[in-house]
């Protein structure tokens, strides 16, 4: 509770003088009971005691989960390996939260405790029971960080993510400066930490919304149980999502206008001109870092800023989102060049394929083991349920004559992402991720639709309905979030096998794998270790269905020459079983066959993973992976320099314009309309000129 940056303590500790009053219809005086206690003190103490007890039960029962339990996971994922006591405890905490929410007196400390307990139980579950941090993509990102720390360069042709290396750069800088040699604990707890920082920003966002304090607490709790997408691991998306929420907090906190009774928002807060200027730089800096770190997030930020302006809820002028667009286009055109110059059709192929993106988001991911298919359908159902609750909340607010503008923008604006980007099916998941800050508040409005003034405490029937919904949401979270754990988990054996590879990668190694690369690959030595799937033109999983027939493995190792290894892991076996319909004992059979084959030697033998090399040396040269030229690379086209000059003019011009608006508190005097046009026409021409340069660079490469 004393941790000042932790979640809603941030807002809970706020001096009340800075905001309008939002207490839920309190009784005019505090009636004292015969024993001199405030009303509800006994109930509150009982809820505290029960909360602590349930948390203790959860932690103790999670401590009993063994590696054997995890190995016995079914298609339902982690939930199938957890003791019943843990699941009852976490559902109990959900019910306690609902009961605490509807106490006669709002108890912020109790609600905060239960909220943080929910974060730990739901988002820390894997970290509590698994010996190694999840999941393989986080290890891949560690490899990018390792490469920057060792060389100070990027490898833009190796992977698209290298075109947006901001997150990897700052991680490398902080790890090196802080002497962090083992970043695995950072990976292990990054999900819990990320969730707490999200909650802190969301708590500030909620201070702008005209909703009862109970509604605010429920919105925070809904955010925690609605974050089942699992994009909060050590990744650029997690980092830029934090930046997105903080960006919204600043935008809605200090660059909002309007608000008041019936608008859905509280009256905008004032700030001194100097302070607002500082915040403008912070806002822009946050956006620019997102531009340098992620492909998609900046465009969601631009859409949010532009729509809030169009809804007349932003003090910032239309030129600010224009400035943001120019910055994002500049990065894409110049520093992201290596990504798109090679595959223009791929990049723009995703544009406009809305139905295709939705269908592939749903159906492509639904194949293989029937139980696991149910998990995937549940995810679709859960997203629909959350959006349904949000629509219900919006409707109930309208019935109370509250015409929200900010919340619908936050909840439904991200739908534009369906029409863009070549994320393929994954875009549907990202859409839900970006909608969640708005969806969780509107879903809370479905239960607490009242504005802050005159809010009523719900009756017992409403409390019971909310308690049922809370238990359903927690259960849905457990399955949707950890449903892929059978093959997304990382085991100690896999790490041991890969450590062997890195220890023997002079001058280079090749690692042959099966399935969807569900093991911690590329954690270090990117330029020395190549990764090759089992070659097969027809089967996407590319492993022999009969595990006793290992001649294909031997042939693959021979074809990749000296210093090539075959890795077979339990998670790869689970991936083949659940996603490609392979038999359940495929892994054990394959390990037995490979271990008995005299043509191979087993260089690493653990229960979770085996690493194999050819027993007899093979002739030929060691294959060194082709990682492409180091970056960043910017090709000079005839208009490249002109673009840089235009950018150097536009950036200070548009930023200066916004600083002037702040100075005038967002007002444009009627007499100043003429001067407004004098600015707008040349600025628009410059922006068009710059965008023409961006297009010309695309065309230049398209014609190459």
């Amino acid at each position, binding site marked *: 509770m004393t941790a000042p940056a932790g979640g809603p303590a941030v807002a809970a500790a*706020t001096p*009340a003088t800075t905001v309008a009053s939002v207490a839920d219809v309190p009784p005019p005086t505090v009636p004292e009971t015969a024993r001199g206690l405030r009303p509800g003190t006994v109930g509150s103490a009982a809820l505290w005691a029960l909360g602590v007890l349930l948390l203790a039960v959860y932690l103790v029962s999670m401590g009993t989960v063994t590696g054997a339990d995890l190995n016995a996971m079914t298609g339902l994922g982690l939930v199938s390996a957890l003791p019943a006591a843990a699941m009852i405890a976490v559902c109990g905490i959900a019910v306690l939260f609902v009961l605490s929410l509807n106490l006669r007196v*709002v108890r912020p400390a109790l609600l905060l405790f239960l909220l943080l307990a929910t974060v730990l139980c739901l988002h820390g579950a894997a970290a509590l029971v698994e010996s190694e941090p999840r999941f393989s993509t986080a290890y891949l990102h560690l490899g990018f960080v390792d490469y920057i720390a060792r060389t100070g360069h990027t490898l833009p042709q190796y992977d698209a993510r290298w075109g947006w290396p901001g997150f990897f750069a700052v991680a490398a800088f902080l790890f090196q400066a802080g002497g*962090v040699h083992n970043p695995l604990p950072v990976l292990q707890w990054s999900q819990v930490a990320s969730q707490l920082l999200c909650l802190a920003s969301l708590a500030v966002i909620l201070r702008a919304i005209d909703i009862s304090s109970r509604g605010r607490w429920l919105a925070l709790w809904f955010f925690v149980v609605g974050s089942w997408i699992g994009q909060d691991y050590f990744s650029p998306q997690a980092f830029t999502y934090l930046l997105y929420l903080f960006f919204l907090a600043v935008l809605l906190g200090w660059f909002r206008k309007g608000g008041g009774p019936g608008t859905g928002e509280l009256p905008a807060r004032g700030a001194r001109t100097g302070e607002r200027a500082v915040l403008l730089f912070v806002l822009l800096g946050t956006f620019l*870092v997102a531009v340098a770190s992620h492909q998609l997030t900046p465009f969601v930020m631009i859409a949010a800023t532009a729509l809030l302006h169009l809804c007349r809820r932003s003090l910032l002028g239309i030129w600010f989102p224009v400035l943001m667009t120019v910055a994002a286009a500049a990065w894409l055109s110049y520093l992201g060049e290596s990504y798109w110059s090679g595959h223009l059709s791929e990049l723009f192929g995703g544009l406009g394929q809305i139905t295709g993106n939705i269908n592939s988001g749903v159906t492509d991911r639904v194949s293989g083991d029937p139980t696991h298919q149910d998990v995937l359908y549940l995810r679709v159902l859960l997203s629909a349920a959350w959006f349904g609750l949000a629509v219900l909340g919006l409707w109930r607010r309208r019935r109370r004559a509250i015409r929200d503008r900010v919340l619908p923008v936050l909840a439904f604006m991200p739908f534009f992402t369906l029409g863009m980007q070549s994320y393929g099916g994954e875009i549907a998941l990202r859409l839900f991720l970006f909608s969640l800050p708005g969806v969780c508040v509107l879903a809370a409005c479905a239960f607490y639709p009242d504005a802050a003034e005159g809010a009523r405490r719900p009756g017992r029937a409403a409390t019971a309905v909310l308690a049922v919904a809370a238990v359903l949401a927690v259960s849905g979270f457990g399955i949707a979030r950890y449903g892929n754990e059978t093959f997304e988990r990382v085991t100690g054996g896999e790490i041991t096998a890969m450590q062997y590879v890195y220890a023997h990668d002079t001058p280079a190694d090749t690692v042959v794998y099966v399935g969807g690369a569900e093991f911690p690959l590329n954690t270090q030595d990117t330029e020395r270790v190549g990764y090759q799937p089992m070659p097969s033109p027809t089967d996407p999983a590319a492993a022999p269905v009969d595990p006793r027939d290992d001649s294909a493995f031997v042939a693959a190792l021979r074809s990749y020459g000296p210093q090539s290894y075959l890795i077979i892991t339990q998670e790869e076996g689970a991936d083949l079983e659940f996603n490609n319909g392979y038999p359940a004992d495929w892994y054990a059979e394959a390990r037995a066959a490979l271990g008995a084959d005299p043509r191979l030697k087993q260089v690493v033998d653990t229960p979770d993973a085996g690493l194999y090399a050819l027993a007899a040396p093979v002739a030929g040269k060691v294959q060194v992976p082709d990682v492409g030229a180091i970056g960043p690379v910017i090709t000079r086209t005839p208009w490249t320099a002109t673009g840089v000059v235009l950018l150097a003019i536009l950036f200070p011009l548009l930023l200066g314009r916004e600083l002037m608006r702040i100075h005038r508190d967002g007002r444009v005097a009627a007499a100043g309309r003429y001067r407004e046009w004098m600015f707008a026409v040349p600025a628009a021409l410059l922006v068009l000129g710059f965008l023409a340069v961006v297009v010309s660079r695309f065309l230049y490469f398209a014609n190459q």
Partner: protein
Amino acid sequence: MAAIAESPAVGTTHGGPYGGRIVLSLTLRGVLVAVYGGVLLAGAASSMLAVFGRQTVAIPLLTLLFLLFGPGAAVGWLLPGFDPAVRLLTGLFAGAVLDCVVAESMLALRMWSVRGGIAMVLLSTAALLTAGAVARVRGGAIRAGG
């Protein structure tokens, strides 16, 4: 627990957005501020030593703490009208943004140097503190002049 009190919203119209406040006693608040300031000062000193190549066990840890919280504290100082929690949150993110801008600039310009990066963060923090001091002196002068 006497240092931390909960003030629920009953009977008051100043319950705050979350229906009450968690109030720290003045003594506890003073201790927290002193610890925070002390760690930041030690972090700044360690960062300077790190720039000049000195390495002990404590220097990297304190340097990391400075990189995470130092620039943010300077930004927080530029926002005197805001409540401490918002200043802390803004400072935390602003500090991360500054670290990221420095790291990304070194990467894009092919001038990667950890010591150089720490020096840049130190200089930026000093610049922010100077700007804050100038603003306060000018603000004070304007207020004094009526």
